[in-house]
């Protein structure tokens, strides 16, 4: 506890980096998966390719992917870009399936009704299908966010700093307080991300939370 209080500056700085390294890929990954998921949902032939491809990509262990990124991107091994790109790939790998499942879960009647009142494919997607798919997509996003926060801490082993530095340094110098600070920091961050996604889901799906009138 003393260690934590004496190093609040460091903890804050590393937390901010952790938020960027885990959060930016979550947003980028969501946007990319919405696009890919939409294509895979509409074109049957591409569905298998998108799902198998993302499954294989997700199979690669994180430390291996971090280390191999410079080979693909031409970056330095210490560059945070490696971690951002790798985490984005993982996020997309998880979310493409979720987005396809979410779009599949839209009731055909809602889709037909939208078409009948004159919605084109693009407007129907944004205005009807996507909002109805939000609960399924949000559930996938929550899984991805918890796993991102944990995986990002591994990046300390390749020298990209964030809260994982506290874990590595705490281990190397056998400082229990530092190890605890890093672990708690990651847990709190995972909980905050989770709460934010739940809040976003609530705001985007007001019809699911109308309270008593809905059940009456």
């Amino acid at each position: 506890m003393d260690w934590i209080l004496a190093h609040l500056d460091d903890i804050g700085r590393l937390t901010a980096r952790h938020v960027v390294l885990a959060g930016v890929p979550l947003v980028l990954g969501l946007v990319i998966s919405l696009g890919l998921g939409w294509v895979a949902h509409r074109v049957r032939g591409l569905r298998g390719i998108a799902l198998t491809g993302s499954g294989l990509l997700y199979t690669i262990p994180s430390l291996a992917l971090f280390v191999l990124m410079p080979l693909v991107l031409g970056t330095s091994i210490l560059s945070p870009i490696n971690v951002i790109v790798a985490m984005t790939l993982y996020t997309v790998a998880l979310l493409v399936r979720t987005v396809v499942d979410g779009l599949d879960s839209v009731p055909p009647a809602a889709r037909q009704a939208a078409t009948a009142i004159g919605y084109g494919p693009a407007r129907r997607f944004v205005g009807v299908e996507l909002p109805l798919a939000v609960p399924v997509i949000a559930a996938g996003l929550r899984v991805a966010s918890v796993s991102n926060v944990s995986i990002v801490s591994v990046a300390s082993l390749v020298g990209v700093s964030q809260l994982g530095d506290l874990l590595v340094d705490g281990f190397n110098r056998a400082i229990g307080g530092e190890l605890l600070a890093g672990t708690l920091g990651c847990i709190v961050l995972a909980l905050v991300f989770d709460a934010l996604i739940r809040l976003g889901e609530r705001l985007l799906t007001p019809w699911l939370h109308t309270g008593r009138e809905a059940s009456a």
Partner: protein
Amino acid sequence: MIGTILDWLLSAQTWQGDDGILARLLEHIGYTLLVVVIAAAIAIPLGLWVGHTGRGRWLVSGANAVRAVPTLGLLFALVLWLGPRLSGELYFVLPSVLVLVLLAVPPILSGTYSGVAAVDPAARDAARGMGMTGRQVLRDVELPCALPLILSGLSSAMLQVVATATIAAYVGLGGLGRFIIDGLAVQDYAQTAGGAILVALLALVLEGLMAAIQRLVVSPGLTDNPGRQRSRRPSLRSRTT
């Protein structure tokens, strides 16, 4: 750059000896199988029990909550805490194996539980109506029906273990992670990248094997009926390492 990595991967020297690729590969596979077998021995009976009786569901959600703890923190904490009480190689091997088992249990447990919970109630009732005992229903109806999700949980656990065992090289565990960690320490990128390629290939091969096993052992009655497959889809298979 790619040339030196290939040189490292293909030279006979790096494959031989106690710290050669072959020995490290076997170590990695050995740890992975050991851990998955131990975790399955704990999680499958537990998951079947929770699914069959409907009691103790908090076990499943509790095990899943562990996912918010960063893997690296869990590993380091256990080595620092348990290590000094152990001697020799056990210093880092036992804590590492413990963490790996701890991480492998939740996916198998939730796969087994949701597999049993998703069994068509009509099938269960029919089995009871034929006079099967609770034990027979579990063994002859619920277990075969839950098999796809159990196997999915097993392969999810396997990937988590392969990835985390790689990281455990940092606390001294053998396996392919050694090449990545040692290469990083001496800034030998060829060795680091070579190790990373090997780990990635190992993970892909194990995943392929699990898919093949699934195809072999799952009853065709479960896979040939597309209408029923939807509810049997595994939940998202995420990793924390």
